């Protein structure tokens, strides 16, 4: 892709500071919006852009904003979800680290559109070093009249505050995040009522991901229709993909949606192929929660079409042969990766991070972890494999929040696509018992 949109200017020295950011056209969108556009018009542009939630769900942002209860006389809140904790995802961290003002600009525009006077950035506590960077950017924006009372001489006032979490994956779920922001345990709320009606402190609230909100700046700058011309079909615009695992160039890349997965994986501009010239075994395309796909299915759909980096193409074939774009956490496994070990590892993650509120998730994640541990460590039974499928099925859809689904999908998909590897672990306990690294199962190269 030629020009960067969200990451424009990221290589310019000093872009983290206000002056350099401003000199490259930063905050021009804020001036344009506040001086020439009504809040409704900003909303319209975002709707026209086709922007979809970049945190994982892919819900149209303009539509989410339209749900906000504008009749209520209570204050409205905008909460920026910077609780990036999905394994494989590190795009928001990258964006906030290098371009904090891009986020602040997006927050000002979004708050203007939504009629919000107070905005909180909920950032995971482990990103303590980013708190200072964001606070500094906010201070600079205040000093230049872009935050605080009567911004740019208009009647619009806004304050942005950074609020740290303290180590809980579940707080990335929007209602758990709101609970946490209220100073409580991060237990997700039952929806409805949705945050658009009863969110923070019972007031109408919009919660959006960092990348989503940061994209509002470029959208207002170039116009919603121009943004919608980028991308492919309903997957408009660009998306940050954080690539990691066994590849030559791990990192965060801004891609125009519609790029073939194969190009992303092998182009020297992006992942630059599998490290050590090994074979590709599997990919988790959208953060650890989405189904894992074997090499054949990630590059091409079951219909034989090239798989593209879009919401639609990645979910083509649904869960039987497809996956999801999710948060854009792109984890690549080479021929040596042990899928049983990886699945056990992720199950342990979800067990650790389950808030414990719903029994299917609290108990089910623990059972999946235990059973997978014994399969991986040479103590498994053949019936364990179907047991895992059954437990996963009983969690899915039976919990208040999607963490249950997120815990079930990696297990179900790993067994769906790599069942032989699980069986191999059960059949050869002596071979898997003491060796925990790499695959003992010969890779079937098609």
């Amino acid at each position, binding site marked *: 892709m030629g020009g960067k949109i969200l990451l424009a200017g990221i290589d310019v020295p000093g872009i983290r500071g206000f002056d350099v950011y401003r000199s490259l056209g930063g905050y021009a969108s804020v001036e344009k919006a506040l001086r020439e556009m009504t809040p409704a018009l900003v909303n319209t542009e975002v709707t026209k852009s086709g922007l979809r939630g970049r945190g994982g769900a892919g819900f149209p942002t303009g539509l989410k904003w339209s749900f906000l209860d504008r009749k209520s006389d209570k*204050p409205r809140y905008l909460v920026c979800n910077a609780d*990036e*904790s*999905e*394994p*494989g*995802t*590190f795009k928001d*961290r990258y964006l906030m680290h290098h371009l904090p003002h891009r986020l602040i600009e997006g927050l000002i525009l979004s708050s203007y559109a939504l009629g919000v006077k107070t905005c909180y950035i909920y950032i*995971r*506590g*482990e*990103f*303590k*070093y980013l*708190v*200072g960077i964001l*606070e500094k950017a906010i201070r600079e924006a205040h000093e230049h009249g872009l935050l605080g009372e009567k911004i740019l001489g208009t009647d619009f006032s806004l304050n942005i*505050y*950074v*609020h*740290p*979490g*303290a*180590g*809980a*994956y579940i707080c990335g779920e929007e209602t758990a995040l709101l609970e*946490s*922001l*209220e*100073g*409580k*345990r*991060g237990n997700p709320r039952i929806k409805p009522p949705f945050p658009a009606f009863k969110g923070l*402190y019972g007031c109408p609230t919009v919660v959006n991901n960092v990348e989503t909100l940061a994209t509002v700046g470029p959208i207002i700058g170039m116009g919603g229709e121009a943004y919608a011309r980028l991308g492919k079909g309903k997957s408009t615009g660009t998306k940050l993909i*954080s*690539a*990691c*695992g*066994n590849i030559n160039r*791990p*990192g*965060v890349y801004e891609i125009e949606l519609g790029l073939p997965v194969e190009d992303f994986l092998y182009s020297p501009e992006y992942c630059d192929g599998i490290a050590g010239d090994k074979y590709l075994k599997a990919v*988790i395309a959208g953060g*650890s929660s989405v189904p894992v796909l074997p090499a054949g299915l990630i590059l091409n759909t079951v219909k034989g079409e090239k798989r593209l980096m879009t919401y639609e193409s990645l979910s083509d074939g649904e869960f039987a042969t497809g996956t999801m774009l999710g948060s854009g*956490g792109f*984890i690549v*496994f080479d021929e040596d*990766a042990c899928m049983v*070990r*990886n699945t056990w*590892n*992720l199950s*342990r*993650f979800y067990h*650790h*991070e389950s*808030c414990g509120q719903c029994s299917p998730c609290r108990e089910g994640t623990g059972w999946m972890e235990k059973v997978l541990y014994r399969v991986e460590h040479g103590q498994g039974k053949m019936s364990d494999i179907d047991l895992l499928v059954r437990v996963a099925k009983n969690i899915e859809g039976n919990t208040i929040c999607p963490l249950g689904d997120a815990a079930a999908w990696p297990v179900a998909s790993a067994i769906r696509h790599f069942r032989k590897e699980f069986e191999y672990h059960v059949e050869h306990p002596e071979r898997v018992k003491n060796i*925990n*690294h790499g695959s003992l199962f010969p890779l079937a190269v098609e």
Partner: protein
Amino acid sequence: MPDNHKTNMEQHNNKIIHPQFIKEGKPVAFSAEVLGKIRQLLLRYPEDHRKSALLPVLHIAQEELGGYLSVDVMDHVAALLGILPIEVYEVATFYSMFYLDKMGHYVIEVCRTGPCAISGGEKIMQHLRDVLRIEPGGTTPDGLFTLKEVECLGSCGSGPVMQVNTGYYENLTPGRVDKILEELRENANKDKPDDSTWVEKFC
């Protein structure tokens, strides 16, 4: 509290509640400077929702008042925010960044989740166990290092990763870990390795 009652409670506590949950009654207090900054922090939230400041204030309390959240510290925070002690306990026990035990001078937290594991995270953990001669959860006898396993730190493209008192150390190799430990030992009498405190971050 009568002595016999206290003994009963301790026995009871040891069974189901963490021993650190026994109130020692030691006086704890923030310095005037920190307290001033906390009061500034409270103004970020609506007047009738000051409890919102609980997480940031607990971060500050843990850092300023001994490196972990003792019952005395938690009670102090509860009084400061005008909430019940139980409201602080339930939060402190939920979030993994709050420690209920006394910690070493340096808390080393190694990521163990998927992407780090496939890029060598398990070897880094094994190396740290060998070098420090402690298991995850343990503290070295000199009180310098506490070793912990944690879940994804959001550093998947630069793994393996560990945090030392919330400072990030990425792209680790056993050799690099040795160097980091050496530097930490040398600087043990100076400041902690992260660039600034929570109080400084906010103000």
